[in-house]
């Protein structure tokens, strides 16, 4: 298993949310958390372009993606990940403040792996991030490579 060394990509423009999420993700694990602040930076990191052109590390094993992002929003980043042969196997967990059923359905229809509502309460917020980490790092499995011979 490669779960101990996995990279988590956190795409979050709100610095308070990012700080809380990062510390909850890092607790009790050796995985690396890469934080980018907007959708354009997320695309640069994932597609190894712009400031990340020389990045040679592996793709992240899981992506936590805020929906309301500047420049390029979460829906567009999701679409880019799920239409890319190399990236589409990476689980994408959408983070949102909206519980609107239409928003939830729209994300699942576009290929989001999971949809989590950011809790307003501090303890609940941290608890939910820990639950995300426990599931996607310790329980869910991801392939070493996404491209395959069979369709």
């Amino acid at each position, binding site marked *: 298993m490669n779960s101990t060394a996995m990279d988590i990509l956190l795409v979050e423009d709100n610095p308070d949310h990012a700080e809380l999420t990062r510390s909850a993700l890092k607790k009790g694990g050796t995985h690396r958390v890469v934080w980018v602040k907007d959708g354009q930076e997320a695309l640069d990191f994932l597609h190894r372009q712009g400031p990340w052109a020389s990045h040679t590390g592996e793709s992240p094993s899981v992506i936590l993606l805020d929906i309301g992002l500047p420049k390029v929003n979460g829906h567009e980043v999701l679409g880019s990940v799920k239409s890319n042969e190399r990236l*589409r196997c990476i689980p994408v967990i959408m983070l949102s403040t909206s519980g609107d059923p239409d928003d*939830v359905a729209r994300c699942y229809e576009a290929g989001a792996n999971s*949809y989590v509502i950011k809790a307003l309460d501090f303890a609940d917020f941290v608890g939910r991030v820990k639950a995300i980490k*426990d599931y996607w790092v310790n329980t869910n499995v991801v392939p070493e490579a996404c491209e395959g011979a069979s369709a």
Partner: protein
Amino acid sequence: MGQSRMNILLIEDNPDHAELTLKALENGDLTSRIHWVKDGEEALDFLHHRGRFADPTAAPRPCLILLDFKLPKVDGHEVLQEIKGDRTLRSIPVVMLTNADRGEEIAASYRAGANSVVTKPIGFPEFVERIRTVEGYWLRTSRLPEA
């Protein structure tokens, strides 16, 4: 969360695994109802309200599907492809259950649109524990689409 009773569809041909899964889920959240079908053909009948599931009340739309990879008649991968290729069904999260840590099976599942892939542990207590973890995450942490 204020959600009405949540229907979970379990598609599993191995009766021991099905029984353990049902047991694990029963002891967990009472707000969910589990529907068990034994092969891929039955699963598609359930989802499309065909055959013995023609009455929609006998086969309510699930908000979560647990799908064994290897199934008789229509296998799990085909069921997954059918669900994710159907405009009305594709928003339902599908958790694939695989017997072992098999890379190609896992990658093929994600390519076909699986929301998550989880391996089935060999030991009974570990198996029950894993199913409870899956249930806990999907029913309490993740928001599911409405029925």
